[in-house]
């Protein structure tokens, strides 16, 4: 179980290999990668800058990961979140959940993303092609999605 915040990109194959090495009880590895989108409403997006709250980010991600590990009996898990300036196509976040069977691996991966989206202190600022900056608004749907897991919020 570990969490990392970094500017550098990640390699999902390397991360899975490190998580699963030597653990032959793992039959299922569910992974999610979030990427910077362009096109649609973001057609004019030039870049996105990710800010976070050092210290709290790691604390909050660790709490979320510990909850997932216990709730879904995970064999291993990882959360990596990038910060700094990213462009369309770049990776933002990586979540990996390893379990004996696929049901728990999938559920844990979704749980981790849902809670990361509503609890982990990251903020996105978009810069459009004309150089204008705009903070991304939180989506109410993310809050509703997280509610389905029915954890008491602090």
């Amino acid at each position, binding site marked *: 179980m570990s969490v990392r915040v970094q500017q550098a990109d990640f390699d999902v194959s390397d991360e899975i290999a490190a998580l699963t090495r030597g653990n032959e009880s793992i039959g299922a590895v569910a992974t999610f990668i*979030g990427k910077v989108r362009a096109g649609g409403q973001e057609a004019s997006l030039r870049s996105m800058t*990710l*800010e*976070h*709250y050092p*210290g*709290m980010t790691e*604390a*909050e991600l660790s709490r979320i990961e510990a909850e997932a590990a216990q709730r879904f009996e995970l064999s291993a898990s990882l959360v990596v*979140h990038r910060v700094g300036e990213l462009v369309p196509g770049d990776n*933002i*976040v990586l979540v990996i959940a390893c379990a004996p069977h696929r049901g728990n691996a999938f559920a844990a991966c979704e749980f981790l*993303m849902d809670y*990361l*989206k*509503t*609890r*982990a*202190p*990251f*903020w*996105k*600022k978009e810069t459009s092609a004309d150089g204008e900056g705009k*903070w*991304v*608004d*939180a*989506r109410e749907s993310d809050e509703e999605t997280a509610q389905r897991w029915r954890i008491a*919020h*602090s």
Partner: protein
Amino acid sequence: MSVNAPTREITVRYFAWLREKTGISEERVMVPDSIATVADLVELLRARGPEFDAAFAHASAVRAAIDHAHAKPQASIAQAREVAFFPPVTGG
């Protein structure tokens, strides 16, 4: 708090557009003991000037954390070393 220490010092941090509106990312604030909750602290900060007043104008758009954990406006800051203010998170 003893009667000889009617105030204490708290680190206050601002993120995203709260940082931009206040022009401050981190500061040390002398907080009277009468300031008991996050909401009390917000009122104290708003009284410091128009940029702070504007930053906190929409209470529903501001979230808080005490010592790296999410906190509600009613949460006590009696033991707080660090209080942070930020908009709803948008990571992932």
